[in-house]
Each structure stands twice: as C-alpha cells, then as structure tokens.
C-alpha cells in the first residue's frame, strides 16, 4: 500500500487511498485516542504506516486532499499551546476537514460552565471529532464518555500526550528503521511530564528498552512498574543509548520545590556534547519542545547533527493526519468529484 501511495501523485494518491481505506479504518477499532495505554502494538504500527503514506502530501505543491471533506473538527485547548495546536490545525486542513478553534479564554469556561456542559453544547452542533488539551488528568476521558464525537487527547494534566508519543515513535522508526530493541534514555521531569508517560507506554509496547533519568524529585514512585529502568544520573543513563529524549524543564516548577534552580539543573542534568558522546555514535536527540536553550539542552546540541527535533515537528503533522483519518475517515464515503 505505502509504495503505491508514495509513487502516486496528485489525485491518484487519493484514489489508491480510497481503495485501501475501508480496510484500514476497519482495522483501527477505536472511537477515541485517549492515551497510549489503549493502543496495541498493531494499532501503533497501523498509525505509523498510515502517517508514512500521508507524509508525502505535506511535500507536494498542493498540500491538500479531500479525504475529510464535510467533516468538522473542533480544536479545544484549555491550555496554551503553539506547536500542538498548529500541527492539528494543519493536519485537519490538509485533509480538507473544517476546523474550529476554542481556547479557555474564548470558551464558556471563563463563565463557569463545566467541561461536561461545554461538551454537550459542542455535541449539539454535531462535530465529528474534538481535539482536547486540558490541565486536568482524565478530562478527555470524561469528554469521551459524554459525547458521541471522537476525542483525541492533545495532552491532559500530567497524564498523557499520545500524539506526541506517536510522532516520537514515527521519528525514531524513520531514523532507525525500527523501534524494537532500541535503547532509549528519557531525561528530565518524568513525574510531571505527560510526554514522558506516553513515550514510556508507547516505547515499551513497541519493544524498546527504556531508561529514565533525572533528579529524584522528578522520578515518580514505582515508575519501574511501567517496565522502565531508573538510572538517575544522566551520565550513566545515556551510556550506549540509541535515542536520548529530553523533556522540557518547566521553569514554574522551581517554586514548587522540585529543584533548586536552572543553573543547578543545567549543570547536573543538562545535555551537553560530553554527555551525548557517552551514547552510541549513531544516537539521535529528541525534544518535544518548546526547548529551554541552556537548561535541559545546550544550543549546539539542539542544533547539532544528532538533533531530530525539527523532524519531530514535521512528523507531527503526518501522525495527526493519520489519526484524524483513522478515527473519522471511514464513517461515510466521500464524494470523489
């Protein structure tokens, strides 16, 4: 399927795509994407394969196919976001879905409306899919229970950020050709990172060996139960690794007694050249962004040859297109002309 698609151009892609899609969508048997925990390895493979096929659209002159014409997607961001929101917007538009964006300040939340009431009101307008970012863990789960539209979790509290994990997996597979058997170190605030939890769930499910590192205040209790190793010192944690994933240090956490300060963090846990050199020669360095230059990563590493940070951003669009397609693409046939 993917070869056919990659070699096709223009409208042909779409025709080939249409022939394949019935079976694809049938294979992906989920109403919502709430977390990596709900996905099987086969689901993840399917998403990544679909994303690979769709990635080509973003490199064409006309970056649009009519696949989701007539579908409406609501981007509902209770928390600020630039990258994820833009990525979802672009993904939906490249598939010709109509999009509406709501933020906490423009929503009725400021007027005291509860999430459930807001959800019921949105549902009354019959959207096909709602992308939700929310500061509360479990908010997308609550929304998904309440409404019949599909829900994609674009980050809930400190819990999960599954589309980030999927684009990370996509980038790793693109660069390394596989995920299974790779050694991955995740460094930073594991305890308060939804990216870390989703990446851990996704990577372990796909057979990677995951080590987490960071100050003890940032390692959650009993994290080993998720199937990861804990090696707090990054110098030891990165040794022999294929992939180093960094997490954004949330500067506001300083006041929450999690760590003494940026200088201290950068000195003992920041990724510099010396640290990178302890990993495999072929190591790739990843970061979900936005990066704090000089804190968790020094600038020449962020911009250096190991860095795949911008690939992650580019792949984010493809992965989100794949999810939109798999969740709402197959529910009714699209008029080709």
């Amino acid at each position, binding site marked *: 399927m993917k070869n056919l698609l990659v070699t096709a151009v223009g409208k042909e892609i779409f025709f080939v795509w249409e022939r394949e899609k019935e079976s694809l969508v049938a294979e992906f048997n989920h109403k919502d994407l709430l977390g990596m925990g709900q996905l099987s390895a086969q689901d993840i493979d399917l998403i990544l394969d679909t994303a690979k096929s769709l990635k080509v659209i973003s490199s064409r002159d006309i970056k649009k196919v009519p696949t989701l014409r007539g579908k409406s997607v609501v981007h509902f961001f209770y928390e600020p976001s630039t990258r994820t929101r833009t990525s979802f917007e672009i993904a939906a538009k490249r598939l010709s879905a109509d999009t509406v964006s709501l933020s906490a300040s423009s929503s009725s939340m400021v007027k005291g409306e509860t999430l*459930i009431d807001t959800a019921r009101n949105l549902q009354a307008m019959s959207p096909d899919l709602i992308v939700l970012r929310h500061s509360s*863990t*479990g908010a997308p789960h*609550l929304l998904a229970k309440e409404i019949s539209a599909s829900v994609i979790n674009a980050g809930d*509290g*400190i*819990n999960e950020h599954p589309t980030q994990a999927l684009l990370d997996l996509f980038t790793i597979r693109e660069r390394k050709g596989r995920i299974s058997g790779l050694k991955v170190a995740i460094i930073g605030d594991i305890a308060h990172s939804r990216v870390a*939890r989703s990446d851990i769930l996704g990577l372990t499910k796909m057979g990677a060996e995951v080590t987490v590192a960071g100050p003890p205040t940032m390692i959650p*209790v009993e994290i080993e*139960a998720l199937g990861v190793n804990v090696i707090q010192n990054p110098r030891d944690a990165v040794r022999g690794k294929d992939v180093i994933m960094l997490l954004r240090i949330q500067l506001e956490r300083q006041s929450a007694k999690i760590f003494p300060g940026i200088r201290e963090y950068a000195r003992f846990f920041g990724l510099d050249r010396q640290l990178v050199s302890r990993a495999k020669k072929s190591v790739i360095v990843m970061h979900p962004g936005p990066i704090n230059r000089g804190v968790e990563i020094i600038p020449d590493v962020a911009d250096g040859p190991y860095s795949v940070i911008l690939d992650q951003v580019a792949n984010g669009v493809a992965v989100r297109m794949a999810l939109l397609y798999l969740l709402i693409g197959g529910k009714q046939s699209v008029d080709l002309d």
Partner: protein
Amino acid sequence: MSTWIRGGELVDPEKGILEQSDIIIERGRVSRILPHGVFKGQDARLKVIDASGRLVVPGLIDMHVHLREPGEEYKETIATGAMAAVVGGFTSVACMPNTNPPNDCRSVTEFIVRRAEEVGLARVYPIASITMEQQGKVLTEFGDLKEAGAVGISEDGYSVVDSELMRRALEYANYHGLAVICHCEDRSLSEGGAMHEGVVSTRIGLPGIPAASEEIMVFRDIALARLTGTPVHIAHVSTRGSVNLIRMAKEDGVSVTAETAPHYFTLDHNAVIGYDTRAKVNPPLRTPGDVEAVKQGLSEGVIDVIATDHAPHSPIEKNLEFDRAAFGMIGLETALPLILSLVREGTLGIAEAFRKLTCNPARILGIHGGSLKEGIPADLAVIDANIEYTMTENDFHSKSNNSPFIGRLFRGRNELTMIGGKIVWEKSSTHPRR
C-alpha cells in the same frame, strides 16, 4: 404500646455473645430480655416483630458523618441524612462541623440539635470545630458548645497546623469532657494531590497524596495526647504506618483510639482507574497492603471503631474532571453489608464487629446507647445477614448518591430500626407480622 421482638439472634457486643432471644419493649425502653420460648405473650395489644433468622443488635452508632446542614442543603439535610442513617441501621450519628457556617458556636450547635429533634429519626450528636471558622487560629468556646449539645470537637477536613494551639485544645477539651477527633493530614504534603501516591498514581498520571501526609499528623497527635494526658481519637485511618503508630502508642499506654471507614478495608487505589470521581476520597484509597494492615488493625483491636465518614456531594462537585472533583463518598446505607463481609471472611467476630459500631463509639463520645440491656431506651436494629442484593443509584435515601459501591453485590441488610421503642424504619415486605 408494647412490642415483642421475637426469636432473633441477639448480639450483645459487650459480652460478646449471640443467642436466640425475645425482647420486650415497654414505654420506649427494653423491659425484659428472655431466652426464646420462655415468653408467651397473649396480650392482643402486643405488637409482635418476628425476628427469627435475623440478627438483633443495639442501634448502630456512626461517629463520623457529614449532614451538610446548615449551608449545603442541596447535598444533604439533617432530615435526609438521618433517614439514610436509620435505613442503614444507625440510630445515632455524630455530625462533623464543616457546614456553612461551620459549627463553631452555640447557635449552630443548637440549630442542629433542634432540627434533629424535629426530624425525629436518628439521634444526632454535633461535633464542634476546634477553632473559629476552622481557620486554625482561635479556639472555639468549648464549654458553651458542650452545654449546647456538642459531644466532641474536631477540625475534620483539616488538621490544626499549629501544634501549640492543638496542645491547648487538648488540655481544654479534657477539662470540659469533650472527645477530640483528629483529622490527620499534613497539607504541605497533600496539597494538589488527588489520590494516593503510589504505583496507580504513577500509571494513570494523577498527582499523589503520600501516606506520610497522614502518618506525620497521627504521630504528632499521639505525641500531644501523651503530653497532655487527653485522649485523642484518630479519624479515618487509612495507612499501614498509621495502624503501626497507633498500635505502638496503645502498647505504650497513650490514651488513643482510632476509627476507619468501610472503604478503607474494602477498596484500594485501583478503584480510581478510569478516573471515577466516586472513588475520590480523603484520605485517599490506599494500596492493597494498606487495606490488609487496616483489616489487621481492626482484627487486633488497634482500630476501635468503624465509622462511615458519610460525605454527600452532588453532581456539581462530582461530575467534573478528577482533580477538580470534591473528596468524599456517602456511606450510611452501604456500611453494614461491607462490615458483615469482614465477619464472613473471618477478619472480625460478629460481636467484635458490632462493638466497633456500638459500645466503642458510645464510650469514646460519652453518649448513651451502644448496648441492649433491660431498662435502657430501646435503640436497635434487626438485620437480615444473608439477603443478597445490589444497590442502584436510585436506592439511596441520602440526598446524594456519590457511592463507589453502586452495582456491587451486597450480602446483609438492615430490615428494621427502632429508636426509643419507636419503629423509624422498616423494610416492610420482608417482615410478616402477626
């Protein structure tokens, strides 16, 4: 009118015995207790309650409930809460002071007492707050509150952070003969937490409340009990560490008693998976190991009392994102079958179980009741220990239905509640009368 409760298995929690008995009630009091078969009542005016195959127990006492009145009548009122109590087999409840306004002065205490009398169901014993407006700064007027009807003091929902103030509260409460009930929580450790900090919180990405948050304050309040010589009662014990601290304190001769709630020996933190806000409670549901330790504490007598911490909330507080939802679950109408299952599994003997629901809380609070003896007011419950059923969300008499036990298969139910010789609740269809 006189009543004859015939042929039930009478549980005497104090003596620890169980025998088939007839109980004669006259003018609201127990007049005679006889072995079954001796009494041959022929008086046509005698009301007969056939209790054969049932347990007859002293009216249950729940020393930890929230009735929400005054101030949050949309969640519960003294009338609905007292109704839920008698349905569950409770003839007396002690209500916590975190109402709005809080029970920190005579007028609120008197209001509660008066409302409860007007309602005429369960006996309601107010617990007053330790400090004005529960702000942890100025002591309430213990003497005045006691006169108005308060039987104890507690800052339930909070700990009094200032240890010196807590020390003085203990000393002063002792003078007035008020029970001191300690909510043990170090807020600096628990703030922002939504569930127990452990493998489940790590898995499902919710901010945690460590066991140490409870244990630090249990230790402090035990130390203050030792310092002041005032008995303290530790509310809603939920962790292994707390059980161990209380055991050591008791062995050391410190005057300390403790309670736990049915959810702490029935559910663990796995109940939160799926972000079910009905399982959000403070202290949080802990680990399976903590559940075992709480059971062991009950079985060894380290934990003296089972109280429900009945905490009604409406969908306004519960149908929300997990971290924004209120803590608490109702318990009055689900406690009995959960406690009977402890008996069936052998954790507690039957008399021992009912001791923790009757004479122990009565002794700690210094209130009447908790036993069935000739001459005392006839507060009792008749229980079918074997009936199986499930609770649906519409089965509650409480105004709220925030219970994680909806849909659970229960065994054992209260069938009849009598207070002062008057039947206040009867599951009528199951009680054929002569």
